C-alpha cells in the first residue's frame, strides 16, 4: 500500500529598500513616499540620453552590513551587471543589478527550533519607477512616476529550506528586526520598503511499506507576488501548499508559474501573462568599475554593526535575569533596548530603598507603555521611584484611619474575625482610599491585623 507524504519546499526572495539619503546611482533625494511625481529625478534616474551611474558608497556598505549579520561570505571582488528587459517603469531598458559576483553569498540563519535557513545571496540593485493604472478621457492608460527609480534595493535570496508558514513568519520578523537594528531601512511592508516573494513547491515522498522511501524533488516552482503583510504571507503560503497538494493528489503536477495573492478573495490567482522565459542578457556594467573588498575593509564595516537581537536577547536574560517574555518586548527595537539599558545605568547609581530591580524597570516600561520619545530615561526612573514612595502618615493618624475603616466596614471586620482572612484585602483597599494611592500598604496591613486581634 503506497502512502504519499507531501512536504512543502519554500524559498524566499526579499527586497529591502535602503534608507539612504540619496539614490543608488545619482544624488537625487531618495525619499519618495507621498511626494509630487517626478520631482526627485535627474538625467541618471530618468535614463536620459548620455547619463551615467555612479554608485552610492553607503548603500554598498549597508549591503555588506546585512550580509555579515546573516553570516554571509563577502566576495573579495564584485561588480554590477546589466539586466536587460523592457518595461515602462524601467527607464534605461535595463536594471543595474548584480549577477554572478554579488556582494554577499552563502550565509545562514538558525531559527528557534534549530532549523537552518541558508542564505544564497544578498545583492544590490536599483528600484524601478512606479506605475499607476488609470483612465484619461475614458481611455485606459498607465501613468509613470520615476521618483522611486534608482532607489537602492537589497535583494536577499534564501535556499528553499523552509517547510511551513510559521518558519517563514519567524524568519521574516527576525529579518525585519535585524534590518531595523542595522539602521539601514525601516523595512515597512505597508510602505513598500520590505517586499516578499515566496516560492512554494511540494516534495512528494512515496512511502512503500517499510522498506523504500522514494523522494521526488519538485519539478516545478510557484512564485507568489503581491503580498504586502506578514499575515498575507502566511495565508498565501498555506493556501498554496493546500492547492498544490490537492493537484498532486489528483495525479497531476502543478504548473510552474507566477501567481498573485488576492487579499479580498483570500487565494492566489494565476497571473496569466505570456509566460515568456526572460532572457536578461546579463553582462558586466561597463559604466561602473569593479569593486574590491579586503579583509580590512570588511572588518571596518563589521565594526559598524551594533549588537544584534539574538545576542542581546541572550545577554539580557543572563545579565538582568529577565524572562524571555520581557526580553522579547524590550529588544523589539534597538531604540527601546538602548533606552532600557540607559535607564538601568541611571538606576545603578542609586542606592538604598530607591533602587529598583531590572525586572521592575522592565515591567514599568512595558506595562505603562512609556513613550520613549517623550519620556527620558532619567524621568522614567524618577517616576518609578516616586511611585514607590509612600505617603507618610503619623502613627496617630494611621490609627485613626484604620479605626474608621473598621467601624465603617463592621461586617467585613466580623467576617475576618470569623476566619475569612481574604476579606483583609478589601479592608486594606478601603483604608488606602482614605490616604491615597501612595499609601503604605504594609503599614496599613500591620495596623489592621493588630486591631482585628
Amino acid at each position, binding site marked *: 500500500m503506497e502512502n504519499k507524504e507531501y512536504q512543502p519546499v519554500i524559498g524566499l526572495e526579499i527586497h529591502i529598500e535602503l534608507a539612504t539619503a540619496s539614490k543608488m546611482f545619482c544624488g537625487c533625494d531618495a525619499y519618495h513616499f507621498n511626494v509630487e511625481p517626478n520631482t526627485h529625478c535627474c538625467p541618471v534616474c530618468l535614463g536620459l*540620453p548620455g547619463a551615467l551611474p555612479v554608485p552610492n558608497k553607503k548603500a554598498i556598505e549597508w549591503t555588506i552590513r546585512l550580509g555579515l549579520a546573516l553570516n554571509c561570505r563577502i566576495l573579495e571582488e564584485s561588480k554590477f551587471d546589466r539586466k536587460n528587459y523592457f518595461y515602462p517603469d524601467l527607464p534605461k531598458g535595463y536594471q543595474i543589478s548584480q549577477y554572478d559576483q554579488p556582494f554577499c553569498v552563502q550565509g545562514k540563519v538558525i531559527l528557534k527550533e534549530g532549523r537552518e535557513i541558508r542564505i544564497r545571496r544578498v545583492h544590490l540593485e536599483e528600484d524601478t519607477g512606479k506605475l499607476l493604472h488609470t483612465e484619461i478621457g475614458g481611455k485606459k492608460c498607465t501613468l509613470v512616476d520615476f521618483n522611486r527609480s534608482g532607489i537602492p534595493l537589497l535583494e536577499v535570496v534564501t535556499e528553499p529550506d523552509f517547510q511551513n508558514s510559521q518558519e517563514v513568519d519567524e524568519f521574516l520578523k527576525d529579518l525585519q528586526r535585524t534590518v531595523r537594528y542595522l539602521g539601514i531601512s525601516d523595512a515597512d511592508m505597508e510602505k513598500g520598503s520590505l517586499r516578499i516573494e515566496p516560492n512554494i513547491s511540494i516534495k512528494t515522498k512515496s512511502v512503500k511499506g517499510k522498506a523504500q522511501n522514494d523522494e521526488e524533488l519538485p519539478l516545478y516552482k510557484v512564485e507568489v507576488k503581491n503580498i504586502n503583510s506578514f499575515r498575507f504571507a502566511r495565508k498565501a503560503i498555506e493556501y498554496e501548499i493546500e492547492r498544490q497538494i490537492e493537484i498532486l493528489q489528483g495525479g497531476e503536477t502543478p504548473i510552474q508559474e507566477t501567481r498573485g495573492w488576492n487579499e479580498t478573495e483570500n487565494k492566489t490567482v494565476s497571473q496569466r501573462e505570456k509566460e515568456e522565459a526572460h532572457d536578461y542578457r546579463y553582462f558586466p556594467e561597463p559604466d561602473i568599475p569593479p569593486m574590491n573588498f579586503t579583509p580590512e575593509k570588511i572588518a571596518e564595516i563589521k565594526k559598524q554593526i551594533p549588537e544584534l537581537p539574538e545576542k542581546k536577547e541572550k545577554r539580557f536574560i543572563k545579565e538582568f535575569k529577565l524572562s524571555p517574555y520581557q526580553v522579547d518586548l524590550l529588544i523589539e527595537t534597538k531604540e527601546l533596548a538602548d533606552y532600557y539599558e540607559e535607564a538601568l545605568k541611571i538606576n545603578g547609581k542609586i542606592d538604598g530603598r530607591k533602587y529598583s530591580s531590572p525586572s521592575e524597570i522592565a515591567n514599568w516600561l512595558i506595562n505603562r507603555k512609556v513613550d520613549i520619545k517623550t519620556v527620558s530615561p532619567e524621568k522614567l526612573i524618577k517616576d518609578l521611584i516616586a511611585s514607590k514612595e509612600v505617603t507618610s502618615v503619623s502613627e496617630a493618624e494611621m490609627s485613626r484611619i484604620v479605626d474608621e475603616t473598621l467601624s465603617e466596614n463592621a461586617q467585613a471586620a466580623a467576617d475576618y474575625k470569623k476566619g475569612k482572612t481574604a476579606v483583609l484585602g478589601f479592608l486594606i483597599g478601603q483604608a488606602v482610599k482614605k490616604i491615597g494611592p501612595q499609601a503604605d500598604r504594609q503599614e496599613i496591613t500591620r495596623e489592621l491585623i493588630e486591631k482585628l486581634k
Partner: protein
Amino acid sequence: MNLNELSLTEVLEGIEKKRFSPQEIFADCQKRIKEVDEKTKAFITVIAETRNAIPFAIKDNFCTENIRTTASSNILRDYIPPYNATVYQRLIDAQFGLLGKTNMDSFAHGSSTETSDFFVTHNPWNLERLPGGSSGGSAAAVMADETIFAIGSETAGSIRQPSAWCGVVGLKPSYGRVSRYGVIAMGSSLDCPGPITKTVADAEIIYKTIAGKDPLDATTVDRSLVETSSFEPKKIRIGLAKEYLEVAEKPVRQKILEAAEVFRRLGCSVVEVSLFDPRYAISVYTILQRSEVSSNLARYDGIRYGSDRTYFNKENKRRIMLGTYTLSAGYYDAYYLKAQKIRTVICQDFEKAFEKLDVIIGPVSPSPAKRIGASTADPMFGEKEDVLVEPSTIAGLPAISLPAGFVDGLPVGLQIIGNRWQEDLILNLGKLFETETQYYKIKPKL
C-alpha cells in the same frame, strides 16, 4: 583676412595682442557657415546669436542644455536636453562659445556620416565624397573653416577616420581621460570624446581644457595630464605597423612610408613592428560595440522623450539585432565573453610592443575618402572601414590622426598611437611632424 581661417593658436595670440575680439571671430565663422554650409552640410543646428566667445562646433551627440540634440536620429529629432555634457560645460566655462551642432552617423553607427537620418555631409575637398564618420560634420566644419575647432567622439575611428578623410587633426584620448557624461552612449567601454582641430597644437589646448576626472563618470581617471618627462626626438622609438600597411591601398601606404622618413629625418628611430592581425579586431569590436549598443539603445521607448522605436533606421536596427543576439542566452560565452578575452590578447599585444617602442604609426584608413553612397554596400561597412583603428580603440590607447599628404587631391591621415595615458608624447610628436610638413596650410577651395 577672414578670422575664421585662423587656427586656435593664432586666435588666442591675436586676442591677447588685442588685434581682434572673440566676437569678430564668432561673426566671421557664422558668415562662413552661411556661405558654404549648404555645400558641406556639416551643421544640423546653428546658433543664431553672435557671442563674444571663441567659437566651436560640437557633434550632435553631446547634450547641450536647452539646445536641440539629435544624435542625427529621427528618434531625437526634437529632443532638447535639460542638462549639459561635462565636455560642453568645461568648454563654455573656459569662455568658448557654441556655433552649432554638427552632423554625424545616426547614433554614431557608422564611418561615413551617410547614415545620418537627416542628410549626408560632404567632404570639403571633393563634395562628391564622404567626410568619413561618425564625426563627419565636425571634421568637415573644421576643414571648411566654418569653425575654429570642433569636438567629436570616437568609439572606433569616429574621430580619427573623418579627420583623416577631411585633412584635419583628430585626437582620440585614452579611454577614461575625458568624461562621457552627457555624450549619447554608443559603446560604453569604448566611447572617447576628443578634439578635432586645424593643428596638433590646437588639439593640445582643447584636450587640456576638457580632460580630467569627472565625479559624474566613474570611468574617468584621476591622473596628471603630463605623463612623459621629457621630449627628445632622437630618443623616440617609432614602430611602423606592418599589418596596417598591408591592409592599406598602395598610394596610402606610400604616404605613410614618406611620413616614416620624415620622422627618421627628425632623428627618431623607425622600425617595422608586427602586431596582432587587425582583422580579428574587426570582429572583436563588432561584437563588443553592437552588444553595448543594443543595451544602450534600450532606453529609447518614446515615453520620457523622443519618438518610439519604430523611428530607428536600418543601421540602428541591424546593430541592435546583432548585439542582442551576441548577448543572448546560449550565445554570450561564444560571442561577448570570447570578444572580451580577445580584447585581453590585443591589450597584451600592445603592451609587448610598447616594451620596445614609444609610439606606433600607420595609416588611419585603408583608402582616402570614398564616394557618397559607398557605405550602403556592406552590412559591416563601418567596422571594416575602421580596421586600422579598432585595435587601439579596443585597448583604450590614445591616438592622433594628422594630415600626411594627398592622393588624387584627397587627404591621407597618419595616425600616431601611444601607450596608455601618453597623450603628451603623441601630441609632441605630432607637433613636430606638422611643423616639418606644414600640411595644415593647404586648404580646399569651396
